């Protein structure tokens, strides 16, 4: 049996498959409820722009994916491609598969766009981003949608020290679009035993500058916003503005309480980590979803109750463990996946190599996060040396 030429097939399909021009398609969409628009172009063409609400079903995968993407064989289907030819062939394949009401759009996406009809340009990662985050994209829980959420996220790290270094490092690597860093200190030689964002050559430089250099060297596609300032009651609202999540990596009680109180006031999740010698703690304080720091510790210890400065010390690797746990919680919050540490205080004892979990509950009478409580204002506690 002699085969048919391309021209013969095209002529045959033009004859047998109804075609609509873009104006008729728009009118149909306005008048009929159950119309499915099917974009039969390749993924990269679809990502560059498509008809609003179009289902993407590449010509090459049409037979394999049709049943999943177009479950109702009797619904009205309008197929389109770039110019109106591929969609005729696709419409024929759909007909062969048993679809009963298939139309093709004349002139395709090119004419649709030329004639000024609405186009959706989906947010998408660039090819370079797709490569950089390939190992994320292949996880269902992240995927392109999750990676885009991370790109849009704005996370503020309080402190570029022991905890802030690993947290910010991994968050930058993961592709958090905007990473704010607050720190007023300069890099000191004693920091380098654990604060891995900084380098020997940068001793004496502002930590924010040093952090920015390191993070952008790792991932130049993200934005690093530096706040070379200390957190105090008069700037905390301004500092926190626009951020979705706070990572508490600070080293003192006055800042911890200000961070907590501002997170309560603004309803922002506060990803918490703290470390001392061989022990660390991590949790997520999220007003409205679980306790805040003050539900757990209503007031900071008085200076005389805190161990002396000489006693303070930490195994350099310990903040790596706790800071990375904080980074993971941040990503889970952004993706909306998994069980957060909300309501659970995770403790880690490095000497025993043991994690423990303590249940922490919101205090309904908490002045800072209790429902219906008026925000009592910020307190600047006196700074003192403590653990």
């Amino acid at each position, binding site marked *: 049996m002699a085969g048919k030429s391309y021209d013969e097939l095209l002529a045959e399909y033009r004859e047998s498959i109804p075609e609509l021009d873009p104006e008729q398609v728009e009118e149909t969409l306005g008048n009929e409820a159950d119309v499915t628009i099917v974009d039969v172009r390749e993924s990269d063409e679809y990502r560059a722009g498509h008809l609003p609400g179009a289902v993407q079903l590449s010509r090459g995968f049409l037979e394999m994916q049709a049943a999943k993407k177009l479950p109702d064989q009797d619904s009205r289907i309008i197929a389109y491609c770039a110019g109106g030819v591929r969609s005729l062939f696709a419409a024929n394949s759909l007909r062969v598969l048993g679809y009963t009401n298939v139309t093709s759009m004349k002139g395709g996406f090119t004419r649709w766009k030329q004639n000024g009809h609405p186009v959706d340009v989906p947010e998408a990662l660039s090819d370079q981003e797709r490569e950089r985050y390939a190992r994320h994209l292949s996880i269902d829980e992240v995927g392109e949608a999750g990676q885009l959420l991370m790109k849009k996220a704005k996370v503020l790290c309080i402190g570029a020290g022991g905890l802030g270094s690993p947290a910010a490092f991994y968050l930058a690597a993961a592709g958090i679009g905007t990473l704010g860093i607050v720190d007023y200190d300069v890099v000191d030689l004693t920091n380098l035993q654990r604060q891995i964002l900084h380098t020997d050559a940068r001793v004496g430089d502002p930590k924010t500058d040093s952090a920015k250099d390191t993070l952008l060297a790792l991932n130049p596609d993200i934005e690093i916003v530096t706040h070379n300032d200390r957190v105090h009651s008069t700037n905390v609202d301004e500092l926190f503005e626009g951020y979705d999540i706070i990572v508490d990596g600070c080293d003192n009680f006055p800042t911890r309480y200000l961070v907590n109180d501002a997170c309560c006031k603004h309803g922002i999740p506060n990803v918490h980590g703290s470390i001392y010698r061989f022990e660390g703690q991590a949790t997520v304080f999220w007003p409205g979803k679980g306790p805040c720091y003050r539900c757990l510790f209503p007031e900071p210890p008085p200076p005389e109750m805190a161990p002396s400065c000489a006693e303070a010390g*930490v195994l350099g690797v310990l903040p790596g463990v706790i800071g990375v746990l904080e980074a993971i919680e941040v990503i889970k919050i952004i993706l909306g996946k998994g069980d957060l540490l909300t309501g659970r205080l995770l403790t880690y004892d490095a000497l025993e190599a043991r994690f423990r979990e303590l249940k922490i509950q919101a205090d309904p009478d908490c002045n800072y996060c209790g429902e219906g409580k008026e925000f009592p204002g910020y307190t600047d506690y006196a700074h003192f040396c403590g653990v």
Partner: protein
Amino acid sequence: MAVTIRIPTPLRKFTDGKSEVDVEGGTVREIFDDVENRHGGLKDKIFDDAGEVRRFINVFVNGEDVRHAEGLDTPVKDGDELSVVPAIAGGLGSRPRQV
């Protein structure tokens, strides 16, 4: 009742550096009394003048905060683990920072 009490790092100077102490008692209060008998000085750090647990310290029995149970009267049984968890400021504190 034989119970294990976990001592946080900052208070281990009162327990000869031990992270865990085995003690006896039927309630959290009795546990702390027994700890005090064995390792003097610890109670002062944990309790205020009114005999209440200080506000920057929490006590957990098997991971549950005693404030949400019966406080110091929370019963304990053989094999329970009691944890004392103070607020920890953070990372270094290598030098004091002034406001």
